[in-house]
């Protein structure tokens, strides 16, 4: 697989590992927050931590759109299916996310809800065209990467006059999340960031410059392949070693400073900022999410079905909020592996394969067992 396999090359990994070992200062720790779930996944799946010295530590960030979705939004989606009898189109990632009262979309589907797993927004449009007598709602979720495909679908629905199609919009913005982490009352100690990869493809690396300037944190836009993660870590270590705090771009093959202008303008045409939006773990963040502009408001399922704002409490004991802020690690959660497992997840971080808990449990547990942090 061209442009994939080269970035998973074992021999280069060894070289990069040695470089990091060489350049990392034994007298300090490097606390690097990998912003994205994609990074988290790569770290665990490829066992990157094993290749790094102990003083280079990854702190898992909030960059998994499924993980930061508050439970009340899943409750809303279940309401759409159960009360309004809509065909709900979802990305399969959402199927097992816990809702209130032990529910989930998987269980709502089993109970008879008409929930369809789609691969692309184009599939949702097709389902709407094929079922003219049913209301079809697309559960739109994702950061800036996934937002433009939703925007395209909305424009097409509008052009095609699709009256039975709407979206339940949960698109959120990564810079807002980064700011929230940095602005937290008791901020987590972070030395630098592995910056978003495919989000940056759309919005460009310049979106993060303000953080580097204002908070004096080095940021390296990092690809999702394991060598990208290692190289970016090395670049962060070098910035830290030389007290720099710049936005550097390791992922130049896919990210420019300005990003995909066409996609940005499409997003801008269809969406505008919400005043505020709740993020799991980070709370209400002003101007951190998108909603449909007034001229596309007829496609807004929240308006069409008058969905209430649901304030759902997370499962007692679930540390997702703290984990998403980087304040705790999966092993700090008492429910991990006992009550909470991938087949019976208590929090969203155990659902998405990019969630820190799922990644730790499915891939990283070995390390925990080895170091006696966890006896399974």
């Amino acid at each position, binding site marked *: *697989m*061209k*442009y*994939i396999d*080269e*970035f998973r*090359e074992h021999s*280069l990994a*060894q*070289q*990069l590992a*040695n*470089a990091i070992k*060489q*350049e990392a200062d034994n007298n300090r720790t490097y606390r690097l927050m990998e912003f*994205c*779930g*994609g990074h988290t996944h790569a770290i665990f799946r490829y066992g990157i931590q094993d290749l790094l010295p102990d003083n280079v530590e990854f702190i898992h960030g909030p*960059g*998994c*759109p499924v993980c930061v979705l508050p439970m009340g939004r899943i409750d809303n989606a279940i309401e759409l299916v159960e009360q309004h009898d809509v065909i709900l189109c979802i*990305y399969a990632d959402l199927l097992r996310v816990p809702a209130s009262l032990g529910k989930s979309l998987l269980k709502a589907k089993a109970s008879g809800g008409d929930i369809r797993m789609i*691969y*692309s*927004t*184009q*599939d949702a449009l097709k389902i709407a065209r094929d079922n003219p007598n049913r209301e079809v709602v697309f559960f739109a979720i*994702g*950061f800036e*990467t*996934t937002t*433009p*495909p939703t925007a*395209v679908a909305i424009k097409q629905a509008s052009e095609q006059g699709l009256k039975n199609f709407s979206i339940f919009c949960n698109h959120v913005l*990564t810079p807002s999340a980064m700011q929230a982490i940095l602005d937290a009352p008791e901020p987590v100690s972070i030395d630098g960031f592995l910056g*978003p*990869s*495919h*989000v940056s*493809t*759309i919005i460009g690396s310049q979106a993060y410059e303000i953080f580097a300037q204002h908070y004096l944190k080095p940021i390296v836009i990092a*690809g999702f392949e394991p*060598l*990208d993660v290692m*190289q970016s870590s*090395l670049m962060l270590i070098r910035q830290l070693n030389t007290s720099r705090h710049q936005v550097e771009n*390791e*992922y*130049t*093959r*896919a990210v420019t400073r300005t990003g*995909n202008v*066409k*996609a940005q303008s*499409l997003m801008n045409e269809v969406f505008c900022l919400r005043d505020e939006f709740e993020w799991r773990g980070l709370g209400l963040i002003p101007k951190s999410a998108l909603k449909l502009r007034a001229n596309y408001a007829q496609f807004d399922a929240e308006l069409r079905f008058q969905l209430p704002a649901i304030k759902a409490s997370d499962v007692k004991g679930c540390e997702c909020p703290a984990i998403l802020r980087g304040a705790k690690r999966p092993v700090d959660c008492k429910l991990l592996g006992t009550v909470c497992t991938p087949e019976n997840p208590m929090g969203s971080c155990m659902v998405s394969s*990019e969630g820190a808990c799922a990644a730790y449990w499915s891939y990283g547990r070995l390390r925990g067992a080895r170091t006696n942090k966890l006896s399974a």
Partner: protein
Amino acid sequence: MCLAIPAKIIALDTSNDRATVTVDNVQVEVSLALVDDVVIGDYVLVHVGYALNKIDQDEALKTIALFAEAGLSWAS
């Protein structure tokens, strides 16, 4: 964050603004609504059935060179 994969354009359907791309002989249909000026042979980053942008092949090579360099810098 989001799963996206580099794929090579092998056919264009300009009337529908769509393309056929391949990854190791696996063919997928994608929308080109988010990218301009792609041609057959280009690599694009594919996410949820859309091409997000072109892969800059020169930059890819440079990055790989960087990995080697890191190793060399240590080896040296």
